[in-house]
Each structure stands twice: as C-alpha cells, then as structure tokens.
C-alpha cells in the first residue's frame, strides 16, 4: 500500500504526516499505531495513538481545521505535497491576501462602526460593535488590510452571517 503524505502546519511549524494504513501513521518519519474514531455521530474524535487516548472537537474552517485539544485551540492547515508546492510557488502569502468578509456572528444591532472605507487597519482593530445577547460585542479584524465595501450603517439590525464589510 502506498503512503499518502500530508503536511500539517501550525503556527508556521510544519509536521510531515504519512498515512500508512488504517492503523498506522508516521509523524516526521516515526511510525505510530493509531485507532481513530468519531464519537456518537458528532464532530468529536477519539484518537488512540501508541496507547495514549486523546479526544478533540474538530471545526472545519475555510482554509484550515480548528482542533480543540485539552483546552487549547490549534489552527491546522493541511495540505498534500502538491498543494504545498503550488502555494509556495504562488508566493506563500497569496491565500491570506484574499478578501476577508466580516460576517455577523449572530443577529443583532449595529451600535458603532469605528472604521471607514479605504481605511488601513491592523490585526485586532475593532471594525464593528454589534449588540446582541444583551452585550456589546466588538468584532475585530483577523489581519491587517484595507477596509472595502461597508455594507451596513449604525442602527441597522442585521441577520446572522450577513456580511458587514470587507477587508482586502
């Protein structure tokens, strides 16, 4: 059986992972015995690896996987060798430069929009204040960029997942 090689990246650290068969993977070349199962038809996974028992929640994201393990959240990008090569060839940063659309995480009322179109923002800057669940919630920028297309105004009621503005 042929191994399938993946590269997992967490915080710029690469992990080379080969899927050998249903019961074995290799981590950076070192073979581990595994028993991997989802639990109760939920996105909870139980991994027995060389006898150690781990359980995680896995949340799929657009570009990566969020893995919640022992109270720590890891954002893991998973690529095969071809994908990795392509991304490297494209300049590495290309994917992150895609337009980011800030969506309302829940229905609510727009209390304030402390940015304007064309404004440069840094990672962590507050873009919108949304009142919901009796709280004023600050929606922050996940990365640096420039504000484009403000789509809501202060005082608007917004639906869940409604796009509020974009960052390029």
């Amino acid at each position, binding site marked *: 059986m042929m191994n*399938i090689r*993946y590269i*997992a990246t*967490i*915080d710029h*650290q690469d*992990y080379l*992972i080969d*899927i050998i068969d*249903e019961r074995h*993977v290799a*981590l950076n070349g070192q073979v*581990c015995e*595994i028993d*991997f*199962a*989802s639990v*109760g*038809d*939920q*996105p*909870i*996974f139980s*991994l027995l*690896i060389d006898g150690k028992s*781990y359980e*995680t*929640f*896995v949340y*799929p994201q657009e570009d*990566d*996987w*969020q*893995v*919640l*393990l*022992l*109270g*720590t*959240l*890891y954002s*893991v990008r*998973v690529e095969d060798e071809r994908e990795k090569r392509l991304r490297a060839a494209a300049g590495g940063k290309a994917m992150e430069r895609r337009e980011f659309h800030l969506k309302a*995480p*829940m*229905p*609510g009322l727009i*209390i304030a929009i402390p940015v304007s179109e064309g404004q440069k923002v840094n990672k962590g800057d507050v873009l919108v204040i949304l*009142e*919901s*669940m*009796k*709280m*004023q*919630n*600050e*929606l*922050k920028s996940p990365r640096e960029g420039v504000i484009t297309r403000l789509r809501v105004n202060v005082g608007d009621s917004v639906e*869940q997942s409604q796009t509020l503005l974009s960052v390029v």
Partner: protein
Amino acid sequence: MFNKVLIANRGEIAVRIIRACRELGMQTVAVFSEADRHALHVRYADEAYFIGASPSRESYLRGDRIIDVALKSGAGAIHPGYGFLAERADFAQAVLDAGLAFIGPKPSSIAAMGDKAVARSTVAKAGVPVVPGTEGEGSLRDDDLLTIAPQIGFPLLIKATAGGGGKGMREVTSMEEMPALLKAARREAEAAFGDGNVYLEKLIDGARHIEFQILADQNGNVIHLGERECSLQRRHQKLLEESPSPFISDDDDLRQRMGEVAVRAAQAVGYVNAGTIEFLVDKDKKFYFLEMNTRLQVEHPVTEMVTGVDIVKEQIRIARGRQLRYKQEDILFKGWSIECRINAEDPFNNFLPSTGVITHIVPPSGPGVRIDTGVYPGFEITPYYDALISKLIVWGETRAEAILRMRRALEEYRILGVRTNIPFHQRLMDSHRFMAGQFDTRFVEERFSLESAQESVEACPEIAAIIAVLVAHRQTRRSAQFVHHDQRDVSNWKWFGRWERMRK
C-alpha cells in the same frame, strides 16, 4: 399561605426554582416567550403560559402580564429569580397589590438598595464603610457627574444605578474620556434595565470583590452564610466564584467582622428574604460596601455547597412566614466550592456570543459535581437572552481538591452546536496565580490571556496535526468517492453527512 408559585424567569434559574418548589411539594407555574416554548422550565413546570414575543421587553419584562397569569392560574406567590424584574420595586409592589406574595424583599428595601446611590448613603448612615463616589440621592445629569468626577479622582467607574451584571458600567481613566463613556453607559443601561441613570465610584486598585450571602425572616432574624469570592471577572461580568474566599480563607476574624457589617447593612433597610452584600476589599483587608443585590444571585450554589443550606427553599419558607431554621451559630462551613459559569461564547474569538442549536451534551458527573442548567440537546440558543447556559459547581474537602475536581469536570464536559468558554476556565484552572489565590478584579483582563497561559500546560501540536490530517484525509477520500471496504471504518463516515446538513 400559598402552595403554587409562579416563576417569573427563564433558563437555569427558573429550573432551579421549579426544583425547589417541587421538593417542597409546591405546584409551579412557568411563563415563556415565543423563543422559549421548548425551554426546560416550560417542560418541567406543572403549568406554563405564553406571555409574549421573544425580546424580554415584550415578555419577561411584562410584569402586568405575569401578574395576570398568576391570578388566572391561582398561583399565590411569584419568584422573580435574578435579572428581568427581580430588582424592580414597582413590580414587587404590583405583586403585593394583586394580593400575591413576592418571594423576595419588601418593595421599600428593593427601592432603597436598587438605586445604588441611595443605597450607599443609607448604609453609610448605619455606619457601614462605603467606596467613595457620588453619594447624592436620585439621578444626576452629565453636567453634575462631570463636575464631581475630578473630586473622586481617576480612575473611576461609571455604573448604572439600576445596574447589575456589569451592564451600563464603564471604567474611566481621564476626564477627556468621560463624555463619550457616559453616553455609552447610559445607552447600555437604558437597553438593559429601561433606566439610563448612572453614578460614579472610585476605582480601588488591586481590589477583591467579595460578597456575603444573608438570610432574613419576617421576624427580624438576620444571619449570614459566609462569603463568596467573585473577583474573577471580565468586562465586569463574573466568570468564576468560590466559597470561601482564598483571600479570607482562615481569617475567621475578618469573616466575622464583614458578616456582621453585612447583617447591619441588611437591617438598615429592614431587609427580608435572601440578599447579598457586595464588598470591595483592598490589599490591606480594608473593606467597603459596594452594593446590595436584593435577590437570589447566580452564584448562590457555592454557598449552598459549603453550608448545606438550600437557599431557594429558605426563600420560599421565609415568604410563607416561617422562622429561619438556622441561627448564626448553626451555620458551619465545610470544604470548598467553586463555580464556573459556562457561557455560549467563543473564548478564542474575543468572547463573542455563540448562537445555534445545541446538538450534543455530555455533562461531567460523579462525586462533588453539580450542574445547574436550562439547556439540553436540541435546544436553540437564541440571541435574545444572556449567554449563560450552565453553571458547573464542584465541592472538595480543600481548595486544592476542588480545583483538581473542577479540572477533571471541565475536561469531561462536552457541548456541541455552540462554542463555549470551557477552554477559558480550563486555562484559568491551570494558572499558577489562580491556584495560589493571587488575583484581583483586574486579573482576567490584565494578567491572563489564553495564549500566554498555554505555555504552562502540556502542548501537543503534533497530536492536533495528526488529527487534522486524519479528518482531512477522510474527507478527501469521501469526496473522491473512494469506496473503502473496511467494516470498522464505515460507521465513522456517517457523521460527515449529518454534520454537513447541520452546518447549512
């Protein structure tokens, strides 16, 4: 004497009160908004009545409708829980005027303590130390507040007079910020309580927030049930409470002095039923009256765990005119209790509230673990009400045992469908400063972050990497229509379909 109680609330506290009534052999009447037809309090009560649309203002804040339901259903008493109408003197008065019992203090006590500014001057007159601030009675306009602010000195706090739960509260570090923050605080207070009045209070540095539970019957007996440590807050919202306080711990003299002051503060307003006196305690163990909460508190269970007193049952007994079953000397403290508030919010994304249908719950259980909750698998968390979905309470013989037990309980807790702040509590339990009891009210915001805290725990990025690869691999194989003849594995595909349907 009443035998049927209407619970004018929702969520975990409505369930908590229904349980107490049931165990006293009382009939229960629930009220519900449109969003809450399927809520646990509706399912558990003997009777349940629809009172309006989902926003609180159209349902749980409609005292008139709630009193109508009580009269129609033959309930003889109303328990307000916390929040909503719990600290509205006009509502308590209307309940009495309708010939019903109000399971709480007299309207005059609520009024006296409910306006935080009035409360401060009342207890100050009774010789209780208060935090310096705007002692004036009634409402102050922005001009007045801007004039008084420099006299109090910065940093200071703007607080809602009708307030509670940190709503309508703002920290001010300079005069320049005042106008904008006053406006924001008033707006939030207006939205939360229907009352935009605010007052000012000196911000005490390195302060602990420590509160005393008191019980008072209709015969003038007042006792306290010891303290709760509530310093761990974020944006003035309590996150974790414990009893006793590690700051007081075995300083029985301080506990006794503070307890006596708490009793005196309650007596100053002729208090009846359960209430809480909040204090700020500075580094030198000087303590100041902060405010009185004239209702049941979210965090009452930690006191129940260490004293063995069922506070909600005592509330009902008191409202029925019974004498307190305990004298001060009967109250003995055993062991240590901690409560973590489990909120539907994402600790990895600025604690944004998280809404949606809860798909799966496995609660921790076993010795020394108590859960108070109003949710279940299939229930939807809506944006209409606050984010508290469960209170996880543990008891241990010692604080160390309680912390270890809380750790294992948090690790066991599984909630799917919404994000929760469980990981935040896990990191807090691992924090050396928390373990050592070295924290104040600013600890969480200023000296604690999920990222830095992670350095102290065993990190396993390689395990996370392997799991992500295995999940991604399965998904790839599946989308490639790979038919794999491994019986053991087939069952694991099922959830992908369901999951994807769920995420639509």
